[in-house]
């Protein structure tokens, strides 16, 4: 089923097309002297089809959250283009940006922090509607109830007057999801939506997100560090390292036949519950992710890569190779 969406005919225009996107954060001394920049997102291109669920996977500092925020219009891209539904994000004026924000929902990592603690659930869900000019109270009420039912917080009455601290972590995250959905977005960006929840709740929330994505025909972009959950909740994976996408493919292809050495290292480091793990040393590449202020020349993974080729990997940036059909990997090994 997952593949069916992925192999949709490319004739249909993509919902989101990102081309050569860079998001840098300037470092200034005394507020004006430019002393460098953090290359958080450093040349990322991809397209997302309508109704597709994808995952961006990487370690902290790989730029996945900065990418999410750039797509949400919270950071201005330094270079490159984001096209949403045919229009360029860079061309939007204030009104256009506001309208764009209604079409992109955002689910954050920390459900308690994502909800203003001084508002009750009814009010939290009303806020986006008020901001986007839904004046009629009855209409707001109707939409709030509908979305609460959709995230399985029913009966809605029971939750409308609750404050966030009265809800469990899973319920809070459902409210966050309801808020992201209430403006009927076309794209939902979920940044580590379950990493702060208990194991038993994680699956519930992921199931819920996936179910809503399917029933609404949403495009869903998961940002996560956890490759083990990805298989069941996304169709395509983008693996990010140091501000770049190093590998992308359909879920099963990527997990079963990882091509990039970084992806291979990442997968090797992940344990499945097994008593034998206790006596096995894992292969872990040495070193740490590079500085994003002075990223290494050539391939960014080369200082840690067991297959690094001197004179090539440390000098030339690898382009995207296609070692398998529809499976891109930015590594000179595929040359």
């Amino acid at each position, binding site marked *: 089923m997952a593949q069916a969406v992925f192999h949709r005919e490319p004739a249909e225009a993509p919902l989101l097309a990102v081309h050569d996107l860079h998001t840098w954060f300037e470092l200034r001394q005394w507020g004006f002297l430019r002393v460098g920049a953090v290359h958080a997102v450093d040349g990322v291109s991809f397209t997302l089809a309508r109704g597709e669920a994808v995952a961006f996977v990487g*370690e*902290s500092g790989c730029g996945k959250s900065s990418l999410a925020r750039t797509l949400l219009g919270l950071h201005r891209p330094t270079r490159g283009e984001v096209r949403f539904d045919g229009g360029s994000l860079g061309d939007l004026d204030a009104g256009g940006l506001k309208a764009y924000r209604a079409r992109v929902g955002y689910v954050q990592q920390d459900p308690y922090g994502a909800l203003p603690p001084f508002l009750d659930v009814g009010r939290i869900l009303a806020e986006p509607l008020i901001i986007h000019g839904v004046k009629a109270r009855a209409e707001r009420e109707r939409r709030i109830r509908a979305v609460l039912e959709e995230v399985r917080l029913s009966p809605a009455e029971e939750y409308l007057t609750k404050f966030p601290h009265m809800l*469990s*972590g*899973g319920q809070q995250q459902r409210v966050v999801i309801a808020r992201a959905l209430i403006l009927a977005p076309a794209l939902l960006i979920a940044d580590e939506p379950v990493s702060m929840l*208990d*194991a*038993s*709740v*994680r*699956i*519930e929330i992921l*199931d819920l997100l996936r179910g809503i994505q399917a029933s609404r025909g949403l495009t869903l972009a998961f940002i996560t*560090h*956890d*490759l*083990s*959950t990805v*298989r*069941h909740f996304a169709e395509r994976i983008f693996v990010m390292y140091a501000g770049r996408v190093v590998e992308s493919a359909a879920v099963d292809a990527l*997990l079963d036949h990882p091509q990039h050495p970084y992806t291979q*290292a*990442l*997968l090797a*480091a*992940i*344990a*499945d*519950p*097994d*008593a*034998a*793990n*206790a*006596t096995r*040393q*894992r292969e*872990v*590449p040495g070193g*740490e992710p590079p500085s994003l202020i002075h990223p290494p020349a050539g391939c960014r993974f080369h200082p840690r890569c067991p297959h690094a080729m001197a004179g090539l990997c440390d000098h030339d940036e690898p382009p995207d190779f296609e070692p398998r059909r529809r499976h891109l990997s930015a590594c000179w090994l595929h040359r």
Partner: protein
Amino acid sequence: MSEPTLLRVADLALHYRTRRGVVRAVDGVGFDLRRNEALVVLGESGCGKSSLARALMRVLPRNVQHTGGRVMLGETEVTALPDERFRREVQWSRMALVMQASMNALNPVVRVGEQVAEPLRVLRGWSRRRALERAAEVFGLVGVSTDFLSRYPFELSGGMRQRAVLAMALVAEPELVILDEPTSALDVLTQAGIMNALKRIKREQGTSFILITHDVATSSELADRVALMYAGQFVEVADADAFFSRPAHPYSRMLMASVPRLRQRSRPEAIPGQPPNLFDPPSGCRFAARCPHRFARCAHDPEAIRLGERHRVRCWLHDESTRRGGA
């Protein structure tokens, strides 16, 4: 192969007083730990697993309402020691604790090496030089370059800081190290690196560990034995291979089924419902409300039932009489 028993815990209890009532965070926990053995205490947040570590190490907040139980460390009855003697004779030197997020609790203005050496200077009165030499040794053990001895915490990455904290716990060569979520804030590769270091230390130094975590996959990286905690109690204690391949308690089975696995295509299944609140835990089996196998007897508090030599489960399904009656 059987090593002598290092730690015996019986009926350990820790209750907190809060404005909403008394929280029974640890409610009658007992287990044995052998030398050079690693016990993983597995549980969801709020099940009392961190309180268990606090109770063992006497790192107690002010609102403790009741502590109870007996802890024997080797031949010493730890629970009978007055606080002062406990601090002098047990803490750091025989039992060390790495608290959750303690890598962020390093003193920002003191060099890392000095902080790691500190317990030796305080507890054993070692000279600065001798203590620093030992600190360098331990740094090697946990896989941190000795160059970092003279660095300040902010100059270290999260993974390196976590290793430094681990070094601090190991510096006085304790018999037992308690680790509370030592890797949960870290990245996958860093996590794997630290687990590698722990495995090596256990093998080379013969240290015993109690690893407290919510992450089933991480737990399997070190565990000789696994204790699954639910609502302040151990519901199942078993050797790792028994626990991971043949979990006995319904909660254990459901938890294992809810773990997403990288290398399997089976879809993880959520556990419906929520854990009970610890203000007023239900009488009888505390998991009954979420359990698909619930039956009349679950209204009574289940005893710890022996399944094997070192396998205990708190569930009536495994009681002789139930099995005979059901069969």
